[in-house]
């Protein structure tokens, strides 16, 4: 007896859409069982986790603040992954963008003008894109695996930021504490609401909509899909694989850099050794959960944000470890990959003789 995965001749398009819904459902059921096993009331816990964050304007704001960078990075990665280009280093590009954009407040602290903010945003995107060009160049020039290079560059970027805020860019009046000067005036994004909602959220939504349109109706979107799913066909159509790698890294790196700048010029307000709670890595889950579709990413970004805020609520209200949030996110990714696999493949149980025949013919 043997179990094999056999490719389905045609994947159900209906199930393709349903798969994230199924994965979320399975996560909720498993989560409830885990809460029950921990001796906590499962329904209360699930309510606190998924519904409670949406019941007050304050926590909705916080969900949006959390979702902003996830969506912004996630839509870039979605296009990237669709084209079969694997940028795993968005966290590093985020850091590079934040550093580049922060040149304005740190080095030109007295220059107060709306143009300063515009320049910061542009520099943020440029910094992220330029940092992403390193793995792109290594991939196209030497054929180096971009998963490894982009991932390892994350640590370089983070340590460089660490060095900058301890050394050259340290606030001279900050008692040697590792922080840059606090940004002021036009070096901060306009804020609303309780003082945490910022312009970056609008930017994220607009970019998601634009990318949705591009991927659906524009030739570039078609090119991304063809090169990603059938590189040879793409080559015959005159689409260059090399150019696609550069395009994807420029786009996803630029957006990650922009997200980094938005974080330091928004909720944080200065440079410090840690500027992101792994947004760049969580955005990978967001991209897949959103079916690599920019609109889907908006929803999955919101869902992941709810899981952060809700996880914190559960922790405080029921005294559950913060690890539950990570377990939930892990389960979510696990179930979506599982559902995807079962949509594309079917499980077959083979008896002993069948297995031998299959083995000989294949």
């Amino acid at each position, binding site marked *: 007896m043997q179990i094999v995965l056999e490719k389905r001749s045609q994947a159900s398009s209906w199930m393709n859409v349903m798969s994230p819904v199924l994965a979320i459902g399975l996560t909720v059921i498993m989560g409830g069982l885990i809460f029950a096993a921990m001796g906590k009331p499962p329904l209360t816990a699930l309510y606190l986790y998924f519904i409670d964050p949406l019941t007050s304007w*304050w926590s909705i704001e*916080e969900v949006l*603040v959390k979702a902003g960078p996830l969506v912004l990075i996630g839509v870039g990665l979605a296009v990237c992954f669709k084209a079969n280009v694997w940028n795993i280093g968005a966290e590093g590009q985020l850091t590079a963008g934040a550093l580049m954009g922060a040149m304005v407040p740190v080095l030109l602290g007295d220059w107060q003008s709306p143009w300063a903010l515009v320049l910061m945003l542009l520099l943020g995107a440029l910094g992220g894109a330029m940092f992403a060009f390193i793995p792109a160049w290594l991939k196209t020039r030497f054929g180096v695996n971009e998963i490894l290079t982009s991932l390892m560059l994350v640590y370089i970027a983070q340590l460089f930021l*660490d060095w900058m805020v*301890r050394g050259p860019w340290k606030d001279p009046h900050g*008692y*040697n*504490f*590792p922080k840059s000067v*606090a940004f002021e005036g036009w070096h901060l994004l306009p804020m609303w609401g*309780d*003082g*945490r909602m910022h312009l970056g959220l609008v930017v994220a939504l607009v970019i998601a909509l634009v990318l949705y349109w591009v991927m659906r109706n524009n030739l570039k979107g078609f090119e991304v899909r063809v090169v990603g799913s059938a590189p040879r066909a793409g080559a015959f159509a005159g689409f260059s694989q090399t150019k696609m790698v550069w395009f994807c890294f420029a786009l996803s790196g630029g957006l990650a850099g922009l997200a980094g700048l938005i*974080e330091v010029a928004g*909720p*944080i*307000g*200065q440079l*410090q*050794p*840690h*500027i*992101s*709670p792994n947004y760049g890595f969580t955005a990978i889950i967001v991209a897949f959960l959103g079916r690599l579709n920019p609109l889907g990413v908006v929803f999955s970004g919101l869902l992941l944000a709810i899981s952060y*805020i809700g996880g*914190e*609520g559960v*922790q*405080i209200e029921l*005294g559950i*470890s*913060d690890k539950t949030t990570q377990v939930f996110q892990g389960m979510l990714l696990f179930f979506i990959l599982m559902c995807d696999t079962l949509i594309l493949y079917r499980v077959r149980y083979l008896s002993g003789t069948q297995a031998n025949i299959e083995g000989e013919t294949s």
Partner: protein
Amino acid sequence: MKKLLTAAAGIALASALSMSAVAADKLKVGFIYIGPPGDHGWTYQHDQGRQAIDARLGDQVETVFVENVPEGPDAERTITRLARQGAGLIFTTSFGYMDPTLKVAAKFPDVKFEHATGYKRADNVSTYSSRFYEGRYVIGQIAAKTSKSGVAGYIGSFPIPEVVRGINAFLLGAQSVNPDFKLKVVWVNSWFDPGREADAAKVLISQGADIITQHTDSTAAVQVAEEQGVNAFGQASDMEAFAPNALLTSIIDNWSDYYIARTQAVLDGTWVSTDTFGGMDANMVNMGPFVNMPADVKAMAEATTAAITAGEFHPFSGPVYKQDGSLAAAEGEVVDLGSLLGMDWYVQGVDDKL
């Protein structure tokens, strides 16, 4: 059936009301932790302080905590949440919560905040810290007496004044015994990262250090010392259980008295914003049992501890020379408080650059 439902709803409503009445009577005290309470170091001791509040004032106070809160924009949200959920007093127990604490405090003027190890205060924000360096001086003396190689290894978290102060105090203590004593420093850029802390301990031992001390939050370093047969010191909490043969003593942070006093002050309505920097005299820094060492070393450590506790001796008594050779405090002087609080220089003999 309908009656039954109405009755059930009535009971539910009544119990909900009575619960909220109880909750309203009790003062809610919140804690923000940088690591898990199970780190058996820094956060563990703060959690001991929280439990001490429960034990002493449990009938008037309810405590809550949030663990593993990163020092960044998330901290502001978490503190806000505690304030919104009705906490009347919030302790934020890591340096990086400084600016978030002040931002939230500005929005909740009626909530009292206590920030550990920072330097920014407001009408409703106090700061508190301990003179950990007093304990560092004692373990420095023990290290110099015990070490054969004359080299100790120091695992640093972040080169902020608090940590640099500890490094300097340790070396000054060691040099009071052996003027040629050397100190190697490795920075792990984290408060709590057992893997990196263990790696740093291994590196330092391979570079010739036969005594390890650390300004990080986990027990990883003392466990490595135990494995490799070198000596070590517990940090923040008594770590003897984790290295019964290697451990010489521990510097133990005692937050319980302070936490109970501040909570009582809020209950009494006498809370005001202050800055507390307590040491051995205030019972905020204690030494663990002196073990695994000869009687004369133990006697010296006890004498130094007693002198510091009595206020007869200050670890930063002159002459203190900076790494560049300049004089920080002359004979008969003590390094002034301002320089201690903003310390950004090493004393002579540290094998590292800031």
